């Protein structure tokens, strides 16, 4: 199966003939490089999540891969909005896997975001907020990408190690950390 769109997002699709037409449109739009304006309304919804600092900088460096998607960015500093102009941008509170209360708050915020956005794809470069986003996205059948931070030279991050079986595409940025069962190495952000 090439496409994985949830057609119940399009209230105007009421019977199977319409559905086939819609699918054909989607297919042609998808095959065109940098799919243009006519596919915009039905572009896959992508939720891109990263903590502040290095995680965010790395997310921006892969953002060109999301071209043609309806992208919502989520991070921990409001001032990052200016770097993703033209896209939806939301903030969650910062937390790490070492502060339980902060974690719960971040998880609740992300649950609300995933519930509202219903993304087709969730992608994260870490850390804890991305972990929650992938787990919660999975509950709503989103496909998930984890790109472990390039900062983790000797071993995967805590979140990155735990997320493994919940990520459809599980990547490390270091060849020596790749394993046959994942994470895989497919290049890095620099």
């Amino acid at each position: 199966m090439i496409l994985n769109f949830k057609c119940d997002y399009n209230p105007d699709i009421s019977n199977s003939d319409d559905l086939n037409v819609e699918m054909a449109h989607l297919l042609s739009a998808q095959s065109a490089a940098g799919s243009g304006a006519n596919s915009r309304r039905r572009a896959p919804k992508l939720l891109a999540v990263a903590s502040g600092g290095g995680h965010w900088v790395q997310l921006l460096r892969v953002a060109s891969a999301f071209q043609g998607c309806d992208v919502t960015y989520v991070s921990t500093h409001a001032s990052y909005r200016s770097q993703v102009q033209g896209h939806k941008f939301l903030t969650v509170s910062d937390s790490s896997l070492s502060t339980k209360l902060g974690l719960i708050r971040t998880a609740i915020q992300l649950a609300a975001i995933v519930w509202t956005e219903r993304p087709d794809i969730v992608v994260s470069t870490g850390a804890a907020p991305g972990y929650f986003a992938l787990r919660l996205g999975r509950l709503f059948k989103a496909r998930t990408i984890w790109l472990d931070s390039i900062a983790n030279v000797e071993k995967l991050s805590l979140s990155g190690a735990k997320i493994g079986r919940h990520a459809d595409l599980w990547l490390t940025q270091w060849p020596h950390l790749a394993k046959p069962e994942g994470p895989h190495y497919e290049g890095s952000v620099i």
Partner: protein
Amino acid sequence: MIFVTVGTQMHFDRLISAVDEWAGTDTSRTVVAQAGPSTYRPKFIKSVPFMSAQDFRDHMHQARVIVSHAGMGSIITALEFGKRIIVMPRRADQGEHRNDHQIATAKYFGSQGHVLVASDKEELFQKLSQFRSGDTVEPISSTASPALISTLRKFVESGSEPRSR
């Protein structure tokens, strides 16, 4: 201008105080710091806890020298601007981070010649004294490696796991 950044999450008084001491040896230099929650009160550095993303990039762009913790946000941004950067990795035993991954990051990026590494104050002073004005490096591209972009793109477009066939 010399720009010092230690991110925003945890204190790094060891670095801020070392740079402040160095700044005090020649007060004609302008030193600006994003010090995060560091508690040391510098005497010779203009210090703020947090800068907006744009402000941060402006300072990176204008800086002659960048001194930083070994955080990827600082390292990658410096490399994007083609700036020389001296990094001091945070240490867990000093309460500067939850673990020692910055030591590994610094070691690797240092061995690749991307950054200069200073483990302590003495090494930092030594690295700072070696700097010549106009000592820049070739900026890195503004996006990730083509292989990584292509893998992500394929996944986003295809709807199937790239490795499944």
